[in-house]
């Protein structure tokens, strides 16, 4: 066992919204890059009373890179929506680093790793990250300087209502300091 491998801890079960997300998680694990799945919810739209109308939970957070990743490998019509959310996130939280991972990026990654045939197989399927002795991650799970925004310990995809509740909590945490919209 190498020096790097010794520092890894077993990762709990994690369900993904899309198989491509599970595949990216496997790639990150393969290269021993720590990741968290949807650890934080960012409010991006409020009403006049300060209630959160819209929020955004990027798919991955890479704590060692302090980088969020958002995958847009689903239908093309969703890409514009995600582009808008990312743009909004960057306006409201300029210190947050986020990278959009488009379908073409995922295809290129699969091509690079000789798994081009997987792209069509993965399209539209639900992802399930099966835990096993080989699928582990490194890192301590810290969420950088954004920990007040959500619950970084929750590695599973939340329902829409759960996201709304989390967004409301995050908005309350922001209280008077929340960016005006």
């Amino acid at each position, binding site marked *: 066992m190498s020096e790097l491998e010794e520092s890894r801890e077993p990762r709990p079960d994690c369900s993904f919204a899309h198989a491509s997300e599970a595949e990216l998680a496997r790639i990150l694990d393969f290269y*021993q*890059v720590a990741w968290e799945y949807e650890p934080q919810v960012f409010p991006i739209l409020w009403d006049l009373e300060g209630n959160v109308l819209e929020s955004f939970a990027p798919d991955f957070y890479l704590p060692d890179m302090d980088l969020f990743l958002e995958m847009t490998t689903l239908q093309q019509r969703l890409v514009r929506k995600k582009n808008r959310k990312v743009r909004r996130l960057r306006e409201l939280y300029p210190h947050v680093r986020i990278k959009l991972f488009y379908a073409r990026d995922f295809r*290129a990654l699969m*091509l690079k790793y*000789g*798994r*081009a*045939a997987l792209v069509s197989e993965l399209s539209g399927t639900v992802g399930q990250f099966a835990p096993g002795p080989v699928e582990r991650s490194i890192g301590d799970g810290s969420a950088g300087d954004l920990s007040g925004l959500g619950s970084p310990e929750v590695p599973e995809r939340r329902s829409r209502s759960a996201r709304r509740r989390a967004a409301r909590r995050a908005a309350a945490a922001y209280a008077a300091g929340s960016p005006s919209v």
Partner: protein
Amino acid sequence: MKPSPDMKQDVAEILLTEEEIRAKVAELGARITADYAGGELTLVSVLKGSLPFMADLMRQIDVPLRIDLMEVSSYGGAATESSGLVRILKDLSAPIDGRDVLLVEDIIDTGLTLNYLLRYLRGKNPRSIKICALLNKPARRLVEIPIDYIGFEVPDRFVVGYGLDYGEVYRNLRFVGVLRPEAYEEQSQA
């Protein structure tokens, strides 16, 4: 997979000619020579893609140097199924503690392999580590790593040649070219 007997037929466009590569390698060699003047250097090449670049670059560097080779498993390869983790397939053959190391890469795109290698090599206590990459594809970057010497920035297309492969083929092309999409679509279905 079945590449065309004439590999050039699988290339849609030549991005970098043999002459352009040769000139750039000489330029990089001169910069590295100046930066390490009076010192010694250990070049570490990451197999297999950087082999032609390493072979040409080392002959353009005019300071005493040692070379070493490393190879790590790639995602999607045979090692993926057996372990699920990146593996050092070939380790350094000599210690690098206290030495100035220059990691020689053919291309840096996601930065995932490089990130792993840097962490591994830093654990061996070199005096310094710098990175020299012939090609840089920043559009693909997932892990931001400062690169000290860059030959060319390349567009976000699938490139082969001068060490770069698709399915272990095309490494011996003397230029860097863009692989025709039909080539990898056909080969992935074969």
